[in-house]
């Protein structure tokens, strides 16, 4: 198997090495505090005992992988989903606003791209701003969105979703403009010789040509959308969600909780990107595309 030799073995080796390095750093970073504790307690533990202690502190500087894994496992599988200590619950809160925002953002991005491709004035006036917007930290606007929506009593999920929306529509708009313009002149000319109307050219040539671009930019967009949802939970002072979990962990310096929340966020991200990638492959297959 080529994929075994070229991918799986190297990746697992690197990951295993990372875990070893992680343990090393956990001992190294937690040792000063542990020595301090032992001195105050008047204990002189042996080397192995000392090692064990550095890896089982309740609020370590760097929690050991097994501590994080244990916390993650307990809070994911052992708790009731409705419990507010359950990571599934927090993950779902973030995930729901991510998905809502992603759906809005993709729709908006496609709409804007269609406008840009068909209206010259829009192309010349809006496109440069969309490109510039990629270079600025638009996420700084997140607290502003929350404030602007304040008077309207919007539910928290919609506020968060709107931040995800405006983070995710830029990549989709840019990708779709590229995709809708990707048909070659030859193909456009062919449609011309068929006396195809603008909408026929759009549906039969431009849209199918843009599908691969759409899914590539949707992968970027859903990751951005998740970051938007997490960041949106910081200034709202949200009580639920992965961002809120991070913030609460930071206030109480519960490092293990922070790491577990981070892992939960990463798992959600990987699932989302994986799903978009899978949908993309399925759509391409059903459109008659061959694997490259």
């Amino acid at each position, binding site marked *: 198997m080529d994929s075994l030799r070229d991918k799986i073995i*190297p990746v697992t080796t690197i990951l295993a090495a990372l875990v070893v390095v992680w343990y090393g750093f956990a001992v190294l970073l937690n040792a000063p505090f542990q020595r301090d504790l032992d001195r105050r307690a008047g204990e002189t533990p042996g080397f192995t005992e000392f090692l064990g202690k550095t890896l089982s502190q309740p609020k370590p500087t760097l929690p050991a992988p097994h501590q994080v894994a244990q916390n993650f496992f307990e809070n994911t599988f052992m708790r009731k989903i409705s419990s507010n200590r359950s990571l599934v619950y927090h993950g779902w809160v973030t995930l729901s606003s991510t998905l809502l925002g992603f759906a809005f953002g993709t729709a908006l991005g496609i709409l804007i791209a269609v406008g840009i491709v068909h209206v*010259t004035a829009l192309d010349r006036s809006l496109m440069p701003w969309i490109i510039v917007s990629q270079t600025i*930290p638009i*996420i700084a606007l997140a607290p*502003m969105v929350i404030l602007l929506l304040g008077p309207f009593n919007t539910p928290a999920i919609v506020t968060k979703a709107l931040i995800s929306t405006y983070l995710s529509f830029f990549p989709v708009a840019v990708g779709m403009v590229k995709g809708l313009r990707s048909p070659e002149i030859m193909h456009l000319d062919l449609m011309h010789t068929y006396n195809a109307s603008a909408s026929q050219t759009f549906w039969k040539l431009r849209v199918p040509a843009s599908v691969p671009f759409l899914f590539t930019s949707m992968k970027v967009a859903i*990751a951005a959308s998740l970051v938007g949802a*997490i960041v949106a939970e910081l200034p709202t002072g949200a009580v639920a969600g992965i961002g809120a979990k*991070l913030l609460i962990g930071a206030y109480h310096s519960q490092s293990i909780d*922070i790491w577990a929340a981070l892992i939960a*966020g990463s798992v959600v991200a990987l699932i989302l990107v994986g799903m978009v990638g899978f949908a993309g492959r399925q759509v391409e297959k059903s459109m008659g595309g061959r694997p490259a």
Partner: protein
Amino acid sequence: MTRLGLSWQALSALVLCVGAAFGLPLFGAQPGMGAVATAEIFALIFAAIVFSAGSGFRPTSVLLLFAATHAAVWLLVSGLAGNEGTARLPYFALLAATWLLAWRTVSVLSHLRPVTAQGRTFVRLAIPLLFGVWILIIWEAIVRGAGVSAIILPPPSAIAARIVTSLPMLAADVNQTIFKSALTGYVLGGSAGFLVAILADRIAFFRRGLLPIGNMMSALPIIGVAPIMVTWFGPDWPSKAGVVVVMTFFPMLVNTVTGLTASGHMERDLMRTYASSYWQTLFKLRLPAAAPFIFNALKINSTLALIGAIVAEFFTTPVVGMGFRISTEIGLLRVDMAWAEIAVAALAGSVFYGVIALIERATTFWHPSVRGG
């Protein structure tokens, strides 16, 4: 419509104008808009409608259309002084009419095909600029006309005034967030990513293991490491720089590794026939060939660095910094200051990106992607 030579924008503007004329006055309270100024606005809009008629456009008629439209909206917005929050429907109708005429100006401009290179550059810049200016005009006119509270959305003029009056504070925040956190992290993360990429290039096993992980990392919400960095490096800028390091490391790693494979087989064979060593091949052939990829990473990272530095300050921070300022000033309902900070962040972001793009043009001028070949 076509017989009159009027576009749909001009026609709707005309309808809006007539409607507004029947609904006068513009403002519901004293002092209101003077009769002369009101007449001038109507005259200017009618003039603009006339200038926009016809089909064959000469630069002079576009210029007249532009001037009349913007003089009208200038009068309209400057008439707001003392009348904030009392605007009536005709005011918004006139605003919509001028906006439609500005749209007409833009669409005429975008069909213009200037002969000279300067003319083309001018048109290329003028259109998006006009669009940006109109967002500000509409923002200003609606917020002040409808009397939206300044603690919800301040008008752009108030934000500009705030920027001018709090320059020292903004400078301190920029220094903290951009020069200390973002730039330090950017340089460290970029160099670390670059060095690891070289290492990965030498050891194929390492590369095969690291590349999928690096690609995967781009999808993860890395920003969440901010609270961890705070427990390690304290609340001041080193922890923010730490977040930026983690965020910028992987794009640089992945792009450099990809870029190092960009040189052709022929060229590498040529280097081999010269009996050049690994390092000679690296510095004389493969790194220059990888330059566009490395610059791509530098550009992506310039945005990521600012995002990382600003968002990390939403967690815990000393009492200075752009992210800190944005979140606290909103809490204190001094929203104009937060907007000022956002404007500065946007400006800094585009300058940062622009500088990288200029360096790229200056150093990789020979590359087909820059030459346009």
